């Protein structure tokens, strides 16, 4: 059975494998043992801490309970930009008008900002390539939302999620080549790695402080602004179904879009049903694939079960995997049907 649970120290070797497989594409998952250990440590500490205002970071793993294999990882940060700065580029347009010459020129700029500091963030979504399908992806991603619904008070008013930016056929980021490289003098992968291990202040030291005029970027870089990598369409689709939308903030390294939402407006929050667990064979009602979680914190569990929304019944194995007994509270929400998802991811 595939179950989501908070990451723990014994997951380190498996996590290292995932980090290597991800090939450094995720800022938050650098292949760096010490940092990965810190990432686990942060989760374990966040599951114990009591001060609600303190920033926390939770990472969850998708585990095959039979083989004990880790298939993927996903994370939540409750408040970014507090312990270290969180930078974005903000896209803004300026219109320069000359009445005398009858000219009206609109010029876009990118300005370094910290607008999103203080937000919550969905981060680190990675699923091992051989296990990529729509349901696994949905479980890995949305299990976080069910967890967040349980612990709303830990979260900020705004929640963001970043999508990786466009890469060309050679795997290069036109945005980075056109902008970041001039200032950081390194490969994108190295910048991503350094940011991931939270390397002291290098972004502040090297990034351009003044606004960048978009027309001075290369054409392909201009076209890539705020566009996600083509192979993460399902990721974007899932976030958009939750109500996330793009509002002019992009990643400073690869120009990928940052999606934002007023946390209370996350669609899953509205669709969740809280009920109690009961064991049984399924009746004749129409059954639908659903996300089911317990209502725990440090012992949080989530899985996908096919059940009747109105009279949900779980198998003994599912109850065990969720770490609950009869009449314990659970959360249920139907899976989204993602038409395009299986094709692209």
């Amino acid at each position, binding site marked *: 059975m595939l179950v989501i649970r908070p990451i723990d120290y014994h997951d380190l070797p498996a996590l290292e494998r995932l980090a290597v497989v991800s090939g450094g594409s995720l800022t938050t998952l650098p292949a760096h043992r010490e940092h990965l250990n810190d990432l686990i440590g942060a989760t374990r500490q966040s599951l114990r801490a009591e001060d609600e205002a303190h920033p926390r970071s939770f990472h969850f793993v998708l585990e095959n309970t039979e083989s004990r294999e880790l298939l993927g990882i996903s994370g939540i940060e409750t408040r970014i930009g507090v312990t270290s700065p969180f930078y974005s580029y903000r896209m803004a347009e300026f219109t320069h008008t000359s009445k005398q010459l009858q*000219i009206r020129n609109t010029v876009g700029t990118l300005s370094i900002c910290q607008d999103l500091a203080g937000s919550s963030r969905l981060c680190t979504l990675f699923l091992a390539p051989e296990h990529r399908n729509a349901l696994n992806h949905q479980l890995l991603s949305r299990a976080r939302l069910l967890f967040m619904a349980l612990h709303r008070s830990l979260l900020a008013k705004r929640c963001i999620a970043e999508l990786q930016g466009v890469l060309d056929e050679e795997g290069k980021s036109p945005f980075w080549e056109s902008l970041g490289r001039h200032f950081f003098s390194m490969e994108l992968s190295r910048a991503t790695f350094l940011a991931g291990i939270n390397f002291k202040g*290098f972004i502040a030291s090297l990034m351009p402080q003044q606004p960048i005029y978009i027309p001075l*970027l290369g054409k392909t870089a201009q076209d890539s602004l705020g566009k996600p990598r083509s192979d993460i369409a399902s990721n974007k689709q899932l976030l958009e179904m939750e109500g996330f939308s793009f509002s002019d903030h992009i990643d400073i390294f690869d120009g990928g879009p940052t999606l934002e939402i007023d946390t209370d407006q996350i669609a899953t929050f509205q669709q969740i049903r809280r009920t109690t667990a009961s064991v049984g064979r399924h009746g004749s009602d129409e059954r639908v694939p659903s996300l089911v979680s317990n209502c725990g914190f440090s012992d949080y569990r989530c899985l996908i079960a096919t059940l009747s929304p109105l009279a949900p019944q779980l198998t003994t194995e599912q109850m065990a995997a969720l770490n609950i007994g009869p009449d314990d509270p659970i959360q249920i929400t139907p899976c989204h049907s993602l038409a395009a998802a299986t094709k692209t991811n």
Partner: protein
Amino acid sequence: MMVIRPIHSDDYDELYALAEKTGAGFTSLQPNEGQVRGKIYSSLEAFEKVVTTPGEETYLFVLEDTENGRVAGICGIEAAVGLSQPWYNYRVGTLVHSSRQLGVHNAVRTLTLSNDHTGYSEVCTLFLDPDYRHSKNGSLLSKSRFMFLAEFPKRFSTHIIAEMRGYSDENGHSPFWEGLGRHFFSMDFADAVYMAGLGDKTFIAELMPRHPIYTNMLPKESQEVIGKVHDNTLPARMMLESEGFRNEGYVDIFDAGPTIETRVMDIRAVRESHYAKVNISDAPEGGETYLMSNTDLKNFRCTLVELSGDHNVVDINPETAAALQVEEGDAVRVVRLSSKLRR
């Protein structure tokens, strides 16, 4: 004999004829009755004015061929630029982005909009009739202005600039404009130059980029021509530099041509020039070439003479004395036409 003197109101016909030879790129002197009359009129006003602080006066001088009365060239000095309309430049600066721990140390050149030369004097409007481009006429025309500056420093700022035409290719394309200006002005280089030449610079303030430009974001060809002069302007630049003008990092916002500058008192011809007493005689020919000017404002005259050395009494022949409108015993200002040593 070739003599420099302030422009007169009856120079109109000659000046118009000269304007017909300048070509379209020389926006400050075009065969246009209004412009030509306006130039003459404002210069007459400048020479008449009682100046306490330098303002918007433009002093214009012509090079007259005393043999036939022709006007062979024109040159000018603006007393103070940027007073009623902003005077724009990019200032070339450096920003270093450095991370010691990573061993990254990037020095990035930036272009920042500036009006730093506001209130400076400017040498301007230099044009010599092609028929007269020989016999040091060019040097006389250009450097006579320094004699005027030396004589009347209170009419000018302590600092003076000269704008140098920037690089453009055989087809008149400015690579700097193509890489930067075009994005903001949405017009051709020639049109922008023409519009600015008309005098109302409001559109520059309205359209130009407001944030500093990182030059590493510009195309290579644009970067390379920053501070580079047009081939035709190289001799003028060399002449001014030999007099002490230097580029302190300011370039034109359209074509990135350098603005060179100096303190008036640091100009060689100003610093080294001195008064001498006139002795009218059959002066011996030969010796070195000197600039010599009288000390009169409205009847300012300047010409070239040959002297055997830098003395306090100078022998000049009656023709020169007449051209300079000086008499026996009068004071004149003299300085060697060119620096003895190239520093």
